[in-house]
Structures are given as structure tokens and as C-alpha cells.
């Protein structure tokens, strides 16, 4: 399956998170199947690519941003960013939801603790965890 370029996806990050169009222009977006990839390299026409840059969005009923990409561009976001405290951050990184109201529009949000972009969340009156299992905090960690 081929990657096809579609920079329309820049608009999603501008509209949803208030990231400037200038920042988003650093990224070229490529669709393949149900994934959208963000790439900052020079396009090289090699055969049989497995991946290109970083997965930025998943396509389904709507667009779902990836934690990995939000961890890169989240620092430029000006809206729909939920800031949590240290105790909440540990819960969130363990994969737990946070049952609390935040000043954000319903939908996907960027979850942040101080300068650390923790990743994606789904806000609908409470913060529903979207951190992939591979990034979750384990008891043996510090």
C-alpha cells in the first residue's frame, strides 16, 4: 500500500489545538490505510516503505491524534491543553482516567504536566485515558 501526500491534515492541528500554521508547515502528511504519518525529511522514492516519519493520526469515525506526535508538537498548542498536577500525572501515566472538569472543548486534548507533554486524552466531562500501554508507568519505575 502506497503513502499518499495530503497536507490537509495540518488544519486539524491548527483548528483543534491552536498550533500555528507556520509550525505545522514543518510537517508533510502522508496517508496510508487508516493512518496518517507526519514527516519532516526530504521525500525519497524508495520501494516498500514500512513507515514514514511518525504516526500522527488514526482515521476512523473521526481523527484521533497519536500520543507520540502530540509529544512533539504539544508544546506549541494554545488550546485544548489540559494541565494536571503531579499526583494526577502519575495516575494518568498509569493508564487511569481523571474524573474532573477541565477548561477544554469535548474531544481529543493534549495532557500536560509542567513542561512534559504526557500525550493524548479524550475529554468528555472527565479525562479519559488514551496513553498507549507501552508508555504506561510501571511500579518498578521511578
Amino acid at each position: 500500500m502506497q503513502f499518499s501526500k495530503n497536507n490537509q491534515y495540518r488544519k486539524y492541528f491548527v483548528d483543534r489545538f491552536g498550533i500555528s500554521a507556520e509550525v505545522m508547515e514543518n510537517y508533510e502528511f502522508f496517508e496510508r490505510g487508516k493512518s496518517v504519518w507526519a514527516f519532516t525529511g526530504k521525500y525519497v522514492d524508495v520501494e516498500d516503505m514500512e513507515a514514514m516519519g511518525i504516526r500522527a493520526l488514526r482515521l476512523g469515525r473521526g481523527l484521533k491524534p497519536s500520543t507520540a506526535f502530540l509529544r512533539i508538537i504539544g508544546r506549541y498548542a494554545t488550546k485544548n491543553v489540559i494541565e494536571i498536577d503531579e499526583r494526577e500525572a502519575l495516575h494518568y501515566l498509569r493508564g487511569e482516567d481523571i474524573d474532573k472538569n477541565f477548561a477544554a472543548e469535548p474531544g481529543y486534548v493534549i495532557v500536560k504536566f509542567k513542561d512534559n507533554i504526557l500525550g493524548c486524552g479524550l475529554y468528555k466531562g472527565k479525562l479519559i485515558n488514551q496513553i498507549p500501554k507501552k508508555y504506561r508507568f510501571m511500579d518498578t519505575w521511578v
Partner: protein
Amino acid sequence: MDEEKLSYFLQYSSIIPEFDRFMDILKIPQPYWIRVNTLKIQEDKLIKRLEKKGFVFERFGNLNAYKILSMPVKHPGATIEHSLGYYYVQDLSSMAPVFAMNLRPGEVILDMAAAPGSKTTMMAEIMRNRGTIVANDVSLSRIKSLGGNIERLGITNVILLRKDARKDLFGVEFDKILLDAPCSGEGVIRKNPWNFHPANEREHRYLREQQIRMLKNAVKHLKEGGIIVYSTCTFHPLENESVVEYGINKLNLEPVEFDIPISNLKGVDEWMGESYEHYKYFKRIYPHLVDTGGMFIAVLKK
């Protein structure tokens, strides 16, 4: 470490300087090193955070590389900061081939045997996510771990491929190629002594053949005037000097002088009756120089 494994290295007494020190250090577990991912965090900020958690570091020169002297966890990757992609656990010796690449903005690079991605992600960090790195590996499971590291570190200029670097075509020519070739892995024995199985002569020769096949394929995909950085993490000259001399004598590659900011010694000039004319161009990092793993590096120009 068991004596049988250690005694395997006695064959190198004539080629490794300060051989007693070399043998002594093989008995001591290798310390962990980390590389701060400056794409995601400022170096001093990360170090302060980890020190607050109980890590003790020693910085190497002015590099973003730190030796861990002590830590509050069993594995240096068991932290939130690691999960956030703020650092990569990477031996100092494995950073050397990347320094030899002398990367420039906008270049198109092929990393022929890239997984699990320490060098790929380091190249991307130096290139500030610009230019392009085509990172290849033959194994699907290794590609997955490479992809995971690329994602964790926030690398956005890498194209992942799964090809057999010995024979498959990539369809384009590259400015520079890193061939960190699969090898007998003698240089990582301190890191993982349990998995180290000494190779016999036949196995070294088989690996040499595969390394030469990869080198031939690399030459096909290199632009005129471009460079190949050939490296392995083994000491055996058949997999190092012998392969590179083949490249010089049979593939018309030119050896290039280069510098790396890590203590090293020159290549081996002779092994088992085979002499290596260009040994002064090659570099070897031994564990007893700065308490790392082992590495061989050569730079060849087309």
C-alpha cells in the same frame, strides 16, 4: 564471567595493546551509558531531574553522553523520562560510528542494518530531524523495536524499510551510508555475557562473507563521492580490517581519515598471515580505554 568465554579472547594478545588491562576489564560488568535526546529536552534539565531521583552520572567530555555511576532502578530505562523519550540507553562506543558520519544538514542517509535504532535516532538528533534517514532492517521484530524507539524519541525524518541488505535494491542513491554490520558481537560481551557465544573460525568467515555482500550492495547505492561508514562491535580482524581491505582493493573504495571524540586506537596491521595495508585509517575502541564496549570503525569513499 566463565573462564571458557574469557579464554576465547586470549587469541588477541598480540593485537590488543595493554592486553592485561583488556582482560581484566572483561571481568567487570559494563556500565550503562545514556545519550540525552536534545530534540526533546535540554541536557542539564534532564540530568538534574534524574539526579534528583537518585541517579549519579559522569559526563563524557562535552558530549551529551553520560556514564551511569549508580541508579535507583535495576535498568536505566525504568523511568518516566525514558518513556517520554528524553534519553536513549546507548553505549558510548556505539556513538562513534555516528560521529564518523560527519553529518550535514539535508543529507540523504541509508542506515543498512538499523535496528534497534541507537545510531538512527542519534543521526536524526544531530540532523535536527532534517534531511532523510532511510533505516533498514531485515527482521520484522527488529523493525518493530526500531519503530518503537523512533516514535519514543520523536524522530520524524526516518523512512523505515524491511529489506535484505545483502541483495535487495533500494531504488535510490544515498549521500552517505552507515553499515553497522551484523557481527560476532565480541565487543558487547560485558553487557550481556550470558548470551555471548564465542564464534569459531568458520563462523567468522561466514560473517565476513555476509559483511562483504552488504558492503558490495552499499557501494551500489552510494553516490559518487559519497562515504560508507563501516562498523562492527567485534574485535576479530576477519570481520573488520579484512572486510574493509576488500572494499578498498576489490570495490575501488578509498580509505578516508576521520576523527571521533572518543579515545581509540588504530586498526590491526596483520592477522593470521593476512596483512592490512591501510590499518592506520581504521579505528578501534577497546573496553579498557574508557570503560565501554568494543567497536571497529572505518570510513570509505566511492
